[in-house]
């Protein structure tokens, strides 16, 4: 594994984004707009905002990074750059590492901005350390990279890859404990929810927003999310076949 090639790839992905400022603006601003909207919806129910606002901070990086990664990789497949990279000394894990690094960085920026807005002007109340919130968001972004990579392996066109969003991400949102607390889900659904990574990210956010001194519990949730991210990245590397028809 060469860090030079991984960094070169991360730099290239970020340069591509830099030439597309509208995408960057959308990635950074849309979560802010949505948190503001949530705050306005619950203008008279501050407690509900506290409950829903924090978990959403974990959901944004998953959405953004999943979509960007899956489409970026699909484009590499369609335009032939991926085939070319696979004939170069660049290893598959180095390529994926480059993607994870660049989008992880972007997610950190996104999380910092959204957290600053949500905890500042919007007045979301959390008990745990704010830094952990950002760390958890970055781990969720790595998960998004891994899942996006996997989705792109099963899609041939942009139309197909976008359809993986409702398939892979939305069920996680429904079952993560945002709508109904996970303990109150019917048995089978609770079991499914236990197997989905977003559940642990949202658990972590809940701990941060409700409990004083929950750092240990949050760290455990973060570790689980990270393990899922690593699993998805490795599976993604496996699905990245050198030989195609």
């Amino acid at each position, binding site marked *: 594994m060469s860090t030079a090639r991984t960094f070169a790839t991360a730099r290239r992905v970020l340069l591509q984004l830099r030439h597309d400022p509208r995408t960057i603006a959308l990635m950074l601003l849309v979560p802010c707009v949505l948190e503001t909207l949530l705050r306005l919806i619950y203008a008279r129910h501050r407690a509900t905002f506290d409950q829903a606002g924090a978990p959403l901070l974990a959901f944004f990086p998953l959405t953004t990074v999943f979509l960007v990664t899956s489409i970026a990789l699909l484009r590499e497949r369609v335009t*032939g750059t991926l085939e*070319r990279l696979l004939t170069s000394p660049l290893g598959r894990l180095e390529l994926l590492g480059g993607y994870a690094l660049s989008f992880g960085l972007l997610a950190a920026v996104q999380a910092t901005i959204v957290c600053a807005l949500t905890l500042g002007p919007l007045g979301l109340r959390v008990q745990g350390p704010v830094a952990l919130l950002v760390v958890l968001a970055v781990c969720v972004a790595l998960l998004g990279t891994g899942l996006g990579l996997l989705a792109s392996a099963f899609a041939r066109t942009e139309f197909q890859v976008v359809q993986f969003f409702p398939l892979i991400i939305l069920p996680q949102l429904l079952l993560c404990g945002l709508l109904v607390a996970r303990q109150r889900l019917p048995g089978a659904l609770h079991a499914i929810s236990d197997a989905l990574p977003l559940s642990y990210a949202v658990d972590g956010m809940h701990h941060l927003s409700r409990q004083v001194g929950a750092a240990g519990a949050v760290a455990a949730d973060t570790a689980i999310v990270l393990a899922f991210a690593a699993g998805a990245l490795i599976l993604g590397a496996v699905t990245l076949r050198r030989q195609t028809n």
Partner: protein
Amino acid sequence: MTACASIAEWTDGPAEAPRADDAVRFDRVTVERGGRAVLRDIDASFATGRVTGLFGPSGSGKSTLIRAIAGVQSGVRGTVTVLGERPGSIAVRRALGYMTQSPSVYEDLTVTENVRYFAAIRGAEMGDVLERVQLCTHANQLVRNLSGGQRARVSLATALVGRPRLLLLDEPTVGLDPLLRRDLWRLFGDLAGEGAALLVSSHVLDEARHCDEVILLREGRIVAQLSPEELSARTGTDDLDEAFIRLIERR
């Protein structure tokens, strides 16, 4: 020249003995795509330090043959040996420059950014590749804003970085003006002179005159492998299109 086997040898003779300077060697290679044989029973080799042209009509299997050498083609039966190694092995990937048929570069990066990235993953410097493909004046333009021919040359430049020992160029001159085409063929000759092995595909038979040796491919089979001079001599015409027709009709 050992590689200039006669047509009879290519059709029913025994396979050639391996040569020391073989860059790539095919032994009884067949490639199937979607249940159809795209390449059939290919026995061929080409040497380093030379420009080998791969000619044939669209659909004759040129790209498939190149992809088999690059190690990205599935369904390959038989043995392909590249620089003494297996296609796709790390040793081959370090030595290979591969230009795909459609320009495979990043449209949302500038020319320089593209070349820098491909140089970085090969652990090389940019060097003089932009001068060699005559793109210095466009160095800071986004590839998205370039013409088709210019994009093809960006793609070529990214294949040339790091002085690869083996260059696989899939239709690098298509759509370019005659002056530029001539210059590129000169460049290919220079690169061969510097010791690289080049396999350059084209469907314009007239370009065969720029090659040290040509492989003629039709319907997934090798029709002949010989020098352009021999092709003219054997078929009694300088018109390379006509020579190709005579070769096929004689079979």
